[in-house]
């Protein structure tokens, strides 16, 4: 008798996740009780997401017609700042994920949140090129839709992240 093809693989990945989750650094992070552990990572994640989503919003507002005296091409340095803040958010998010992997990976909200993060990043990339080469230097009309998209997707991603604390694993 042979086991179904997928079964062994699934077992391996679950074992691997558990191994990471129960590794000494992750146990310390969760149970060490230090402010430099889990709370610090949580703050880094908040600071990072606040910067990425917030700066996106500010740039989005410019595309939606507020602050028309701000020249669009001069916004470029803000995108570098956002990538740096996103790196902080992603790194801290990865640690938070590993520390509680079996719960988070079983939560539908987590995948919805990640989908919105990817969509939001896509909108930001399009905003960056719209800011670099605006169709109309004042209105930046070619970025308006991406601005709305970024605003909506970041708000959805943040809401999803918050709800993960309340909505448990699937079924």
């Amino acid at each position, binding site marked *: 008798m042979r086991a179904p093809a997928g079964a062994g693989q699934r077992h391996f990945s679950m074992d691997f996740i558990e191994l990471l989750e129960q590794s000494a650094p992750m146990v310390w992070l969760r149970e060490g009780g230090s*402010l430099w552990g889990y709370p610090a990572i949580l703050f880094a994640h908040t600071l990072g997401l*606040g910067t990425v989503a917030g700066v996106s919003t*500010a740039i989005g507002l410019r595309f939606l017609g507020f602050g028309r005296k701000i020249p669009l091409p001069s916004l470029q340095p803000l995108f570098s*700042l956002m990538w740096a803040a996103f790196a902080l958010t992603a790194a801290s998010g990865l640690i938070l994920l590993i520390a509680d992997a079996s719960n988070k990976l079983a939560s539908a909200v987590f995948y919805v949140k990640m989908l919105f993060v990817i969509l939001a990043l896509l909108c930001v990339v399009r905003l960056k090129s719209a800011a670099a080469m605006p169709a109309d230097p004042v209105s930046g009309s070619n970025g308006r839709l991406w601005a709305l998209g970024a605003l909506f997707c970041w708000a959805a991603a943040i809401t999803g992240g918050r709800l993960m604390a309340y909505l448990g694993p699937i079924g």
Partner: protein
Amino acid sequence: MNPMNLNLPHLHLLLNHIPTVGTVIALGLLATALARKSDALARAALELFYGVALLTLPAYVTGLATARILVDIPEVSAEAMARHHDAALIGSVLMLITGGLAWLALWQSRQGGGHKSGTTWSVLVFAALTLATMGGAASLGGEIRHPEMLVGDPTTGDIGPAWLRAASIQALVTDYVWLWPGLEALHFVGLAVLFGVIVVVNARLLGLMPAVSYAALHRLLPWGALALGLNVVSGMLFMIATPEQYADNISFHAKLVLLVLAGANLLYLTTSDGPFRAGPHQPVPAMAKAMAVSAILLWAGVMYFGRMLPFIGGAF
């Protein structure tokens, strides 16, 4: 228990004079400014209103902490405290609206064209309403420990509309289970919008976008102020629903102190001449740079101590 708790009722007795006395002074200044048509005097009055509104927050929080201590003293009437709380809540809401309108008037005058009379007059109206309510709240507060000042029975008669009473707000947040998570999501979206605007505006002062004039970025500030207003509302709803999580929480006290300082910093960004010297490719005065660094640190600190409510303060 934290030894700091012993000082909170004292602090409340000190801070609770600010919303009434401060509003009287600012109202007098603003009336004089309107009579003399003095822009400088009007600006001073509006700045004072904004500052008084900021300090109303710690006055309110120390009040919650005081109530939690007094509730154990048998001769203190819980009904008298509830009535004082309800009056103070309406007064605080009106004071915060007054402060928000004062901020808007200051921002508008910086956008050019001097003080918009519509906004300035609405500040005057809301300040008068605040004063009437806060005066009532103050006398109801006095009656809690000074029954000799009593006129009539303190335990009868409701204060204000039913939906704006602390007990109804508490019941609302408890009855609708989705309300708390929903408000949290809103609080986080607000945090992001506020912090994003702060980062962008201050990035210019720190040299990140030298081609943009500070005046152009100043146009974005109302979005940050709007997000701040939303977060004060959602934050107050959390606090009224579960005062035991916040009133004695050392992390929340730190957050409030930093919030007042960050609020003062926002006033600098809104009205001061310093940052406006930064035209396209113009140098930024050292003072404006220092204020930009403090803006980012203060708002990050507000977020830090908010996030640390469960860890440093032991809430939830």
